């Protein structure tokens, strides 16, 4: 299955954030979006995830298995700046909820909760309330969320921003394992993620042009 974006444009308020972005990601491939602050990396990712309306262009799935998904969003995991975990619940309850609520989509199966926690290097503390963990641990548990329910496409927005070097290596391992299973990844980052073969997309920061309706 392939993720194809053609001539995407998006705006926030009156400002056009980017225009005419096209890319294509195949099975086992990763695309790393780079660019300075404010160049629209996060916006691009949210547009692809269907969380923001696009101004023009289209995002679609193509190839084998694409029919199994109603929307592009339902084939994606989105790891944003916020962890989407409840402080009051234990890590296990959080992960269990996402495993049950999201469910596995076509073409793969999620791992068990303990195994996912083990994979992010935090096995044995799943019984703790999520709020007890440190910021870095919380981030890693949020990554475990990607593992408990299978999605072919991972959309990662600054995934390793709050993490130390060891955790970055761990996360690169997770992404590479996902790619080797035929998954796709789309990541926005400042830091090198340490992915094997990854395409790069440089966003220049689209300045100066806004929609002329009020100009």
């Amino acid at each position: 299955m392939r993720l194809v974006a053609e001539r995407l444009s998006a705006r926030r308020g009156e400002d056009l954030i980017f225009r005419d972005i096209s890319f294509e990601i195949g099975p086992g491939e990763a695309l790393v979006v780079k660019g300075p602050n404010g160049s629209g990396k996060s916006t691009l990712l949210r547009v692809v995830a269907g969380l923001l309306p696009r101004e023009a262009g289209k995002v679609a799935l193509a190839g084998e298995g694409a029919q199994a998904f109603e929307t592009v969003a339902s084939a994606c995991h989105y790891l944003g700046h916020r962890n989407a975990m409840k402080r009051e619940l234990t890590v296990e309850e959080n992960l269990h909820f996402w495993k049950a609520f999201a469910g596995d989509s076509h073409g793969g199966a999620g791992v068990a909760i303990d195994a996912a926690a083990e994979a992010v290097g935090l096995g044995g503390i799943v019984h703790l309330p999520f709020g007890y963990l440190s910021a870095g641990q919380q981030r890693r548990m949020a990554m475990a969320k990607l593992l408990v329910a299978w999605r072919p496409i991972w959309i990662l927005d600054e995934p390793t921003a709050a993490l130390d070097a060891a955790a970055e290596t761990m996360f690169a391992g997770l992404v590479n394992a996902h790619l080797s299973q035929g998954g796709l990844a789309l990541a926005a980052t400042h830091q090198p993620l340490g992915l094997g073969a990854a395409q790069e997309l440089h966003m220049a920061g689209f300045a100066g042009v806004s929609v002329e309706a009020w100009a």
Partner: protein
Amino acid sequence: MSEQSLAIRKFSDLANPTRFLALSAIVWPWMAAITALFFAVGLYLCFMSVGDYQQGETVRIMYVHVPAAWLSMMCYSVMAASALGTLVWRHPLADVSAKTAAPIGACFTFIALITGSLWGKPMWGTWWVWDARLTSVFVLFLMYLGLIALNRAVDDPARAAKVSAILILVGFVNIPIIKFSVEWWNTLHQPASVIRLDGPTIDPEFLWPLLVMAIAFTLLFFTLHILAMRNEILRRRVATLRRLAARSAGYGEASR
């Protein structure tokens, strides 16, 4: 603050609850046994005493109602004393005491309200009157529930303790105000209410069971309070250990 005094405070913070746990472990079975004994004697006396010629059987409700009402107020006094302990001496056990007394006090107030209502129906013909004493007890009940809700709403127990200690003391000042204002307000509308709580207690026939039951209820309160405090201490210990576990798991990973 110097490092040494900080260490001393840390130590006393840790040692006092531990000592309390050790001491209370010895004391509470005895207290429970004595409580049971008093209840056995008290209940026996309750049902052996003859009924009042005016009130008939219903006078027996008094043996539950009056001790519960008495405890609803005593429990608040215990909480107020604990609140002082929290604010003035910053004793770690004081806020544990205040926090755990609230649900117990709410339960006794609830018993007082229910039995009062069940006594009121045959005596006055209505379940409830907005009369001075009843209203102030109901307000007390709401305050207990509010304090429980406050304790649950704040994450950090130390902060919750300080805030609720302030509220407890404000409430302590408030209770007589409510009581007197309501009395004044009440006389405007309903001058003569029909309470005769103090009537039957004069007769020793009723006094003895009442006294024994009052002691039994008081002992029950203290037993339950001690046990609830033990639970709360364990709860905080679990929380501390969990934080410790979370931290050490992080370090373990980083050094690996």
